[in-house]
């Protein structure tokens, strides 16, 4: 009879192919919390009793205003959780209870929502969020280095929540980041300290590089269909009116000229 795999000491748990097997928790499973049995005597948390869950009036008013916009008030869960997150810093058990109380939903239901969406935080985080995009276009322009620099510079500052993010829909200013909701880019590595300092001071971050400053490349747009006039690489002078786009050639470390044109 073979000894049961899980009862082997961890270092002996080697797959049949001779390779070290998948990392496992102390209890032998790959699933965290696997050995914590559900307490079957306990009922799942109910919709909280309004008498026992105090909700800050401002938060309550905000959630109720969102609920009123929809035919079914449950549509306001994301808005409700986002409001509670702004209030508490993250979707803490307390925050969840308060939303549950106002929306008349179970905490379990709200946790299922809070764990689904990337922007809802399930752990305490720094109050300044810096989402660095590391998707295709940004990483082609040096996003990994940017993220590393940001992480290093904020490593012992608990006020920052620096994390990588999937494409933020601003690949034209790659490599970019969303800093407390404001899109900035292209960010060069030597701008990182300035950017972080501006966040700490509550000043606008890299004002000239904010997305809102960027003009669309309109003058060149809408070509007639027809045989192409360009073979291979383009000579610089054939690139058309220089005013078309204000952005210089890409490259992570290069600065870029920005248009002074005011846009939304």
């Amino acid at each position: 009879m073979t000894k049961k795999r899980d009862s082997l000491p961890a270092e002996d748990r080697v797959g049949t192919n001779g390779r070290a097997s998948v990392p496992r928790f102390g209890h032998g499973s790959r699933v965290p919390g696997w050995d914590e049995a559900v307490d079957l005597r306990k009922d799942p948390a109910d919709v909280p009793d309004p008498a026992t869950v105090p909700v800050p009036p401002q938060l309550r008013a905000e959630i109720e205003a969102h609920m009123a916009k929809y035919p079914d008030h449950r549509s306001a869960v994301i808005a409700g959780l986002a409001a509670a997150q702004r209030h508490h810093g993250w979707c803490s058990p307390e925050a969840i209870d308060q939303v549950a109380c106002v929306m008349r939903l179970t905490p379990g239901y709200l946790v299922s929502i809070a764990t689904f969406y990337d922007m809802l935080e399930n752990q305490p985080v720094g109050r300044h969020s810096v989402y660095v995009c590391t998707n295709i276009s940004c990483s082609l322009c040096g996003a990994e280095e940017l993220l590393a620099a940001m992480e290093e510079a904020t490593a012992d500052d608990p006020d920052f929540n620096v994390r990588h993010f999937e494409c933020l829909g601003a690949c034209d200013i790659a490599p970019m980041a969303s800093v407390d909701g404001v899109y900035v880019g292209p960010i060069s590595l030597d701008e990182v300290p300035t950017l972080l300092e501006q966040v700490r001071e509550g000043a606008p971050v890299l004002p000239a590089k904010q997305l809102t400053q960027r003009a669309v490349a309109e003058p060149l747009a809408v070509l007639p269909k027809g045989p192409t006039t360009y073979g291979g690489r383009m000579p610089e002078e054939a690139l058309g009116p220089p005013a078309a786009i204000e952005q210089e050639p890409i490259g992570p470390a290069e600065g870029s000229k920005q248009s002074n044109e005011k846009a939304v």
Partner: protein
Amino acid sequence: MSENPTNPSSNGRTQPLLLRGIDEEGLHTLEVYRRRGGYEALTKALDMAPGEVLEQLQASGLRGRGGAGFAIGKKASFMPEGAMDKYMVCNADESEPGAFKDRELMQKNPHQLIEGLIIAAYTVGANRAFIYIRGEYQRQADVLDAALAEAQGAGYLGERILGSGFSLTLVVHRGAGAYICGEETALLDSLEGKRGNPRIKPPFPANQGLYQGPTLINNVETLATVPHVITMGGEKYAELGTESSPGTKVVSISGNVRRPGNYEVELGTPVREIIYGLAGGPPEGREVKFFFPGGSSAPVLTAEDLDRPYDFDSMAEAGSMLGSGSVIVVDDSVPVVDVALKVAKFYEHESCGKCSPCREGTRWTRTILQRVDDGTATPMDLDIMASVQEQILGNCLCVLGDSMAMPIGSMVQKFRAEFEAHIEAARARNPFGDEEPEPPLPVVQGAAA
């Protein structure tokens, strides 16, 4: 070369429709938008019967700009008639890597979208409309909220719009970061306050969508085009672009190009013109290695395909798709494995987990690609990966898994030699991969018995 019937211009180029004067100061306000002729299309549409507006949309041949390229006229015609709760939803989730056109359209010209949305809702008789915008677009959502309040104040939204019998309420609904919520049925679930999991289709949203009611759902760019279709007339609009892909398209172009950005082109413009002529091509001394013609979900094309016309059918013919119209250019300095790994990581992260082939398939694809990169793979792993892709394709409720399988499949197919060389080089560099040399097998008591 086709002449734009309404806007012939001095240089022979067609004038942009969606991006016309897009950087004009204050365009996001009602005042400037109206001064430029805004909301006249709505007035015109409300003077027509809904059926007549539908005819114009059908005549225009306008195909959806969100990914699938389904004609809006056809989709709208599937909506049942009669007085029931019907819904109009605008898909502004735009989370596909490489896409950023909807952002521009909403941020700079929000009224264009709102006008198109009202016309579309009028056409199908929907009285409640929602714009589902991704949570990261905070600025754009604020702009939309402000525009909406202005439109409401001017009587373009609300009860009995412009004195007609048509009423419409509009809500800007912010998401919270999930690519899957761009898939139309996942979006509806998310909008109903659930986790964004795709639904079984049929029933399609046109029959049973939001809150079980018939729902028309369209992309931002599709709806922003609607006022232009009404102003020009469907048939005139159809003269733009190619026969099967009429109109103009805002192309988001990014990656290894000198001038990334949004450009509006007539469909059918050669890809070379877009990548080299507009975006300036790759940086000095580099060449286009491959490009995604329609966002990260589209199979990649190579330099050989540069002279193909950029439209729905030509891209399909080339074995790829136009998708959301986002071109990501990768130049010859970038290893293909790096890009493949990025793509796989993205889809693994964004898979909602409802269907096993997608949840597990994206994870295994990422794992195998990681092995390719760290030197623990063999060339056989590429075949295993191909079989994983095969298990995903067509076996899930939505095409998120397929959207990973197809581009990665195309990369392996077109650059197999490079993948194999990458495997060999990584193995030579690091025979044990990232792992420690393994301990000897333990002798387990009684194992032989």
